[in-house]
């Protein structure tokens, strides 16, 4: 069967927010008339009208949840935002709201956009056009609009640049001193970028800057910046480059327990169950709360707290109930250190006494910390070099960072280079350069400034090797570019274990950094060793280095036997015999045997001499 093409019905169906309301003989002209009335402010500016030619349907949309964006209305190929209107705006006579009321600017939703023909630039306008883009840079959103020169970069790098800008550390809020965020990072000397976009200025982001302008040389350095590593000038770091304070808030509460018992914030006495020794409590005041500005190391107690016992005590010999308190102090996590910044004692949501302790620690950039420019060019610090060993220019400028040139060509981030050039020109010209998409300063403008300042116009300079003092033969591209420090700090991630805690149930090593755990030697890793035939190594990984135990096995009945310490002999609890042998096995296997027993299956282990 051939499907017949259905012709559009002759009458236009009208829909209001998706609900059919009636017919109209000519939907297209009705749509135009409705839009005209909206522009005359007779209809609310939030109403959108969409005419579907093919289905001959007219949709009038007034409901919530439609994403809308502004356009300049165009009439007969002429923008309604005429020069005389522009003049009035400049005189502060008109605001954005006025422009909407006057029908010069209107917001369109995704549906109405289907009926438009939008020009990007005013000079492209033809009589067919219905709208004009307010600014071509508007096609980028809020985050991408802050990145300089996105039109010179490949799109995946813009996406990455956006993602990383969100991870940058700067001043996240201006009232950080008053806040008790669980985690907060504040930069020591944040700078506004030398190359900014109009959106950056409009959002006034320099108030909350998140990065610093660094002198960056594009070259290699003894292989320490291979594969996206960055070589950093140690002396710059000593001067405070990318230095950050980390605030971390710890909190504890005096909880209530059923039975009228309560936690108590106090200095624990040595008779408390689980007392951790005098040293960890050394900074606590009489009230059990730590004294501000005391320097603390890992596992030091911040707030001393005791809890009632977990189970009701039995009545002792003397007939008195001996209340033994349990230690439940709040202490610093393993591997962390810093100073107590401030303390708040308040009431928690359930009316209990709540103590919050804010700990501050300085995070100086170190090898392994992550830095990124605003062009998706990220890297970790690979080496810290003292200033005397860094290359320098004839004017004595030493770069802060050395980035490997291999990072550029395959990723096609020309914007990175242009920003470097622009940053250099901005330094020399004493300006803030404009890197707005499609309308920013051009390469030629930068060249002009650099030329006037006595620099090579392409930004390349002769560098001298810091260690030998010899001239480096090739010229090296060097300039100033905004770099951000991202919140992936090694000090928060680094983790090693050779010995450590094990799980109670399986006797296998714990998992995760917070529990000082081991890395899992998984099934596929195991398969690789089997494939290699390295059975001794498998045994070492899976038994010796994990949950090895020696269990006593009864040779008669094959069940697990015990050692009777009172009589100092091994005995099988099932058949009461003493023919018991020690057997090496994994604790997990012993657990498996126990679990099989719980299934009403009795596993026997038959012992045999190993050949």
């Amino acid at each position, binding site marked *: 069967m051939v499907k017949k093409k259905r012709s559009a019905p002759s009458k236009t169906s009208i829909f209001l927010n998706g609900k059919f309301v009636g017919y109209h003989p000519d939907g297209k002209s009705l749509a135009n008339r409705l839009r005209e009335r909206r522009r005359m402010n007779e209809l609310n500016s939030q109403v959108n009208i969409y005419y579907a030619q093919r289905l001959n349907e007219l949709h009038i949309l007034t409901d919530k949840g439609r994403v809308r964006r502004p356009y300049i209305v165009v009439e007969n190929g002429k923008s309604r935002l005429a020069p005389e209107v522009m003049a009035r705006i400049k005189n502060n006579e008109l605001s954005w709201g006025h422009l909407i009321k006057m029908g010069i600017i209107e917001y369109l939703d995704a549906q109405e956009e289907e009926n438009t023909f939008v020009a990007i630039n005013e000079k492209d306008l033809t009589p067919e056009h219905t709208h004009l883009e307010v600014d071509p840079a508007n096609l980028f959103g809020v985050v991408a609009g802050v990145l300089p020169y996105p039109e010179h970069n490949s799109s995946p790098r813009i996406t990455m640049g956006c993602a990383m800008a969100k991870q940058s550390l700067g001043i996240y809020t201006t009232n950080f001193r008053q806040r008790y965020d669980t985690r907060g990072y504040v930069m020591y000397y944040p700078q506004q970028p030398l190359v900014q976009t109009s959106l950056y200025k409009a959002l006034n982001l320099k108030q909350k800057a998140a990065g610093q302008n660094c002198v960056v040389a594009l070259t290699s350095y003894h292989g320490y910046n291979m594969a996206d590593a960055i070589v950093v000038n140690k002396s710059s770091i000593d001067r405070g480059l990318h230095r950050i304070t980390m605030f971390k808030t710890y909190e504890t509460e005096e909880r209530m327990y059923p039975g009228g018992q309560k936690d108590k914030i106090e200095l624990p006495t040595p008779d408390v169950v689980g007392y951790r020794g005098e040293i960890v409590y050394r900074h606590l005041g009489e009230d059990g709360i730590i004294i501000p500005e005391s320097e603390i190391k890992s596992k030091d107690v911040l707030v001393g707290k005791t809890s009632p016992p977990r189970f009701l005590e039995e009545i002792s010999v003397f007939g008195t109930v001996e209340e033994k308190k349990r230690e439940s102090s709040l202490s610093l996590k393993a591997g962390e250190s810093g100073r107590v910044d401030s303390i708040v004692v308040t009431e928690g949501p359930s009316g209990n006494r709540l103590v919050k302790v804010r700990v501050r620690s300085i995070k100086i950039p170190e090898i392994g910390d992550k830095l990124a420019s605003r062009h998706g060019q990220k890297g970790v610090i690979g080496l810290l070099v003292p200033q005397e060993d860094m290359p320098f220019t004839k004017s004595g400028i030493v770069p802060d960072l050395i980035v490997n040139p291999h990072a550029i060509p395959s990723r096609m981030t020309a914007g990175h280079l242009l920003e470097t050039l622009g940053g250099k020109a901005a330094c020399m010209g004493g300006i803030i350069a404009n890197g707005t998409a499609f309308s920013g300063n051009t390469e030629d403008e930068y060249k002009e400034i650099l030329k006037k300042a006595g620099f090579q116009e392409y930004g390349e300079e002769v560098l001298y090797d810091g260690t030998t003092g010899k001239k480096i033969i090739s010229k090296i591209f060097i300039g100033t570019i905004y770099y951000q420090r991202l919140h992936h700090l090694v000090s928060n991630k680094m983790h090693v274990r050779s010995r450590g805690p094990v799980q109670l149930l399986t006797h296998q090593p714990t998992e995760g950094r917070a529990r000082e755990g081991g890395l899992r030697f998984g099934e596929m890793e195991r398969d*690789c060793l*089997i494939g290699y*035939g390295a*059975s001794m190594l498998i*045994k070492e990984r899976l038994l010796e280095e994990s949950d090895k135990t020696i269990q006593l096995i009864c040779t008669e009945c094959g069940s697990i036997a015990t050692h009777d310490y009172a009589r100092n002999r091994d005995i099988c609890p099932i058949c009461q015999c003493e023919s018991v042998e020690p057997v090496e096995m994994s604790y997990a296997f012993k657990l498996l045997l126990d679990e099989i027993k719980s299934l009403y299956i009795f596993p026997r282990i*038959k012992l045999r001499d190993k050949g």
Partner: protein
Amino acid sequence: MKSKKQSVGIPPFEAVGVICAQSIGEPGTQMTMRTFHYAGVAEHVPTGLPRLIEIVDAKKEPKKPIIDMYLKKSYTKNRAECERVAKELSSVFISDVADVEDDLEKLVIKVIFNEKDGKAQGITFAMVKKAVEDFGESKTIDHTVIIKPSKEIKKAKKISTTTSNKKEKEPKVMTAKAVRKLTNKVRDAIVRGVVGIHKAVVIKGNDEYFIRAGGFNIIGACMNPAIDQDRIYTNNIKEMERVYGIEAARNSIVKEMKDVLDMQGLFVDIRHIMLIADAMTYCGTVKSIGRHGLSGEKIGVLGRAAFEETIKHLINACALSEEELLVGVTENIIVGQTVPVGTGKIKLIMKNKKK
């Protein structure tokens, strides 16, 4: 010569199976990523990972069974002749060339021959008539066959299927329901061609023509005198096993797997594939890899329990008082011993008596 042999040979206690699994599994991960881009293409023969899974699971019938039939020498060069054979082979149903209606009042089935469709398929009215003969007495009125379903035939069929005499006491009169049922059977009756073979196409291979068709009925296809019985192949492994035996099934597993991997541009040493094929066929029938096949037949209880359906295996082992002999790899890892593979297999046979 000797050194060549040594370098090619597999050392004793090499974990051949694991290496085989890894060698196929690793390219398999790359395949998943690539093949799923083709999803949605119509008339798509499963390739890549889905097909590989089909083979390994020893499915009764592949999603798209294909049969390749080569012709006897005298036919191979002549395309027209091949087309004729292809037409003979591909099955044509009654419903393809005629409208089948049931008249429930008179309890008859009308088969109205459509000349136009018939001509396109090269089917004559006589052929249709012959095809419906079995269903009962038929009358012919101007390109229409009217069948009066006869009971005898129905009875005869019943006996052959159930072999019980209980069912012989059938109502004397055909019920409307039975007629309906029979009508559907008439629709699916074959006018010409081989059961299960359809859409036969002539393809030019290496300097000869051969016929490729959907379906897998090897024996049916061999009935055609033009077909070379020694050169017929289907991607249905179970059918290969049924007709040609287990060795052929093994070879077709190897071929099918290799074809899939080659199509993806992946290279896997043929010996790995052969090992899989051997493992699937060594016991005489094609077995799948997995719970119902190979892994389900491991000796050790712990090994089986570690794979799938843990509790079922444990309970069964308990009921049968099974003994775990610790011969497998998994079992030994669970217990915490060296695995009997590679280094772990080497044992001291005799200890020095002097200590």
